[in-house]
């Protein structure tokens, strides 16, 4: 027992095991970035990279791509949220699930379907060639990357915007109307500002996803930072330059996080009012353009990728494409992601308990470090671990353990979030009552706390499992030789235009993620 020296009113007896475990987790989370910093600052490569025109161009391309994807996601999501919450649009619940489902499509699967459908000698051109269409607009480069990332990340903005719009209280808008504001003014000056925190939180996720995305930009041949880093790493002997770029990418991600928190403002939006939803706006003749807009979004972000996957799957099966390799890649994916889920939950649990039950400076610092993983680009984490292992622990280099470690650094926040939420619902009085009945700490933890937080732990494990299945750059860089997963299989097949080989793993990945996305969206729907 370590008694933290706050005697008197609130003596905090934090079990030393808890502090120890949490500190180990925090140290592990800090390792990749700390190592990158040490390695890069020692070599002078950082300055060289920062002053090189090529770096600045890649940086500018990355920033422009992130900004463009974020802006487009907001432009699509806010109108969709409004249509599905505040109007009499038919089938609003169905649309909501359909708009959430693109989250189940990893960016490189989306990119694969775009390339094979719209690329040179792709499906669409095959149809149009008899009509004399020689070539389609260029899919490679900025446009393709922007399109793919927007189509498969906009739900990150749509879902929170929708939730925020649902919780806007009627009386707020009525107050504005009563003060002489028109419908339009009320929306712009009262409703929209209340959506801002939700939109900003979603935009942050989209921007971070775009910054760290490797799959879509590499398949669509857009030289953003991640692709440049990968090329430098695989092609040069001096890997310091790749490490420097990886660090710059991390810095960029933290700048984005900082921008979001700095623009959050002083307002607080939690309302004590009982929820009183405003009446639905009758669309009237606007119903048809609204439906057309919704249908176009679903067509591009869901129907297109799914039907392209189905097309190549059928083509592949007809041509007698082997299914055997998919089974092996699938088993590898299951194994690595399952390990990651188990380790991440085990690592997140002490941090969650410390943060919830023993709030204070130390625990909030540890918690912040644990959450930092969500801003870390996968390729930067992977590179850092490659260098670290190669230099200090060669026995770990190219082992499954290192890959699982990278997954955990990246996805620990997902496990932490849901365990923390579950723990908040465990009333401390149940633990106190058990102590009062003469039971010691370990017994109370096993019999009282753990069973109550178990649902949160399994939800967290599920989240980590699914995201790890989809993770591409860390898998590419860290998996042991010959260890192919579904993600790497899709990526390498698409790169070599073996679309039929990519179809089955893509289908498995999408189907696997689609169920939890649809399930949690529907559950969220029913709650209100």
């Amino acid at each position, binding site marked *: 027992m370590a008694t933290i020296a706050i005697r008197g009113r609130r003596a905090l007896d934090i079990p030393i095991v808890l502090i120890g475990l949490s500190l180990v987790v925090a140290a592990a989370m800090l390792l990749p970035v700390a190592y990158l910093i040490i390695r890069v600052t020692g070599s002078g490569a950082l300055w060289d990279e920062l002053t090189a025109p090529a770096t600045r161009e890649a940086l500018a391309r990355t920033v422009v791509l992130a900004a463009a994807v974020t802006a487009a996601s907001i432009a699509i999501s806010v109108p969709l949220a409004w249509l599905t919450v505040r109007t009499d649009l038919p089938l609003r619940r169905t649309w909501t699930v359909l708009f959430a489902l693109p989250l189940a499509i990893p960016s490189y699967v989306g990119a694969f379907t775009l390339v094979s459908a719209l690329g040179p000698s792709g499906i669409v051109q095959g149809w149009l060639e008899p009509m004399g269409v020689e070539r389609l607009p260029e899919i490679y480069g900025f446009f393709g990357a922007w399109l793919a990332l927007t189509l498969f990340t906009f739900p990150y903005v749509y879902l929170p915007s929708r939730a925020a719009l649902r919780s806007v209280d009627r009386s707020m808008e*009525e*107050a504005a109307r009563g003060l002489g504001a028109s419908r339009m003014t009320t929306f712009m000056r*009262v409703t929209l500002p*209340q959506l801002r925190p939700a939109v900003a939180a979603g935009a942050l996720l989209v921007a971070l996803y775009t910054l760290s995305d490797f799959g879509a930009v590499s398949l669509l041949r857009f030289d953003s930072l991640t692709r440049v880093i990968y090329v430098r790493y695989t092609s040069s002997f001096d890997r310091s330059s790749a490490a420097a770029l990886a660090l710059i990418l991390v810095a960029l991600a933290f700048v984005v996080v900082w921008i979001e928190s700095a623009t959050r*403002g002083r307002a607080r*939006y939690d309302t004590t009012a009982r929820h009183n939803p405003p009446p639905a706006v009758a669309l009237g003749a606007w119903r048809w353009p609204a439906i057309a807009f919704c249908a176009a979004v679903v067509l591009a972000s869901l129907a297109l990728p799914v039907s392209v996957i189905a097309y190549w799957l059928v083509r592949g099966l007809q041509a007698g494409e082997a299914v055997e390799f998919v089974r092996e890649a699938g088993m590898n994916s299951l194994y690595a992601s399952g390990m990651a889920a188990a380790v991440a939950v085990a690592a997140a649990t002490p941090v969650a308990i410390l943060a919830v039950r023993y709030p204070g400076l130390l625990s909030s610092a540890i918690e912040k470090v644990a959450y930092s993983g969500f801003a870390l680009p996968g390729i930067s984490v992977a590179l850092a671990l490659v260098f670290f292992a190669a230099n200090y622990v060669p026995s770990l280099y190219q082992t499954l353990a290192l890959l699982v470690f990278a997954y955990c650094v990246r996805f620990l926040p997902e496990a932490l979030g849901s365990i923390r939420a579950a723990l908040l619902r465990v009333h401390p009085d149940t633990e106190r009552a058990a102590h009062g009945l003469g039971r010691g700490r370990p017994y109370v933890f096993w019999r009282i706390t753990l069973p109550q937080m178990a649902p949160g732990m399994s939800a967290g494990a599920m989240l980590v499992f699914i995201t790890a299945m989809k993770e591409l750059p860390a898998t590419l860089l860290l998996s042991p030789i010959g260890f192919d997963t579904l993600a790497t299989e899709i990526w390498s097949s698409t790169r070599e235009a073996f679309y039929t080989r990519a179809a089955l793993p893509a289908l498995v990945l999408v189907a696997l993620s689609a169920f939890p996305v649809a399930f949690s969206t529907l559950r969220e729907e029913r709650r209100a």
Partner: protein
Amino acid sequence: MSGPFLRCEGIVKRFGQVVAVDGANLDVERGHTLALLGPSGCGKTTLLRVIAGFEHPDGGIVRLGDRLLNGPGAFVPPDKRRIGMVFQDYALFPHLTVASNVAFGMKGRGHRRKRIEELLALVGLGGLGGRMPHELSGGQQQRVALARSLAAEPELILLDEPFSNLDTGLRQRVRQEVRQIIESLGTTAVFVTHDQEEALSLAERVAVMAHGRIEQVGRPAEVYRRPATREVAAFLGDANFVPGEASGDTVRTPLGVLQTPAPAAGPVEVMVRPEDLSVSEQDGAPVEVVSHEYYGHDQMVTVRLSDGATIKVRALSGEDFIPGQRLGVRVRGSIVVFPSSGQTKAHVESPAP
């Protein structure tokens, strides 16, 4: 211009099968403060929202001054009505400062800052314009909401359960302050409440609503002393109901033979307020003390009549009562006679807390 300033005629509002407002009529004179009082679910908030323009009535007319706001083929949208509304939860805009909240509905560009400061000073919040709403206490938020409505210079101000979110001590004070502000500006105001004490103490006029209709409108004392219906009597304070047999100017009741305010005949129901009864050892209808609640300034004694029914009597605080004690009860104030509702026994009705 003649006639009432606000006139509602035959307002009907249905929500599906439920009739929330069922032909309500209500007039308010210019510069008056009217309390719309009634049990929850009686339709008072719906009526207020119809006046504000947030609900479309299924029938009826709303007039303000010489403008027709609701009527056959007429609907003035809420932003064009010049009616201010103070919401139960205040509905302050969380993303705007106190000053910006107040400025939201202000007309004209000139001297904004000065007018905001004046209004904030009027509601006792001078210097707090830079705060965000969540940085204020409940009572302060309430006054910001009031200042915000006043800033738009409304012709009529509506308040929906304006004090229900404040705790008891604060409520008394804020009530008086709000009353003074509204009176000093001469604004016409309608406020909805389910708290009879609030309605009686705050408004110049009280309208009692039940089952979607206005049952009675009048000065507070009028409505309390001479309720038009059993519902009004029971809703405003404690009321004892005893059966009676009227003939001409008198009525025979378990409390003795009493003078009726107006000639009546046949079976009736007589309402007596607890403060219009007195108990003593000398005379009156024989009763037995059941229990008593001591309030300090006075006390409420529950007594059982010879037929077994219980009624309530308000007594001075100096007297002592013991359960089982035998006393006599007398009517010393006025009574109200209603047509018989079929109740055969005496009983007490109190408004829901």
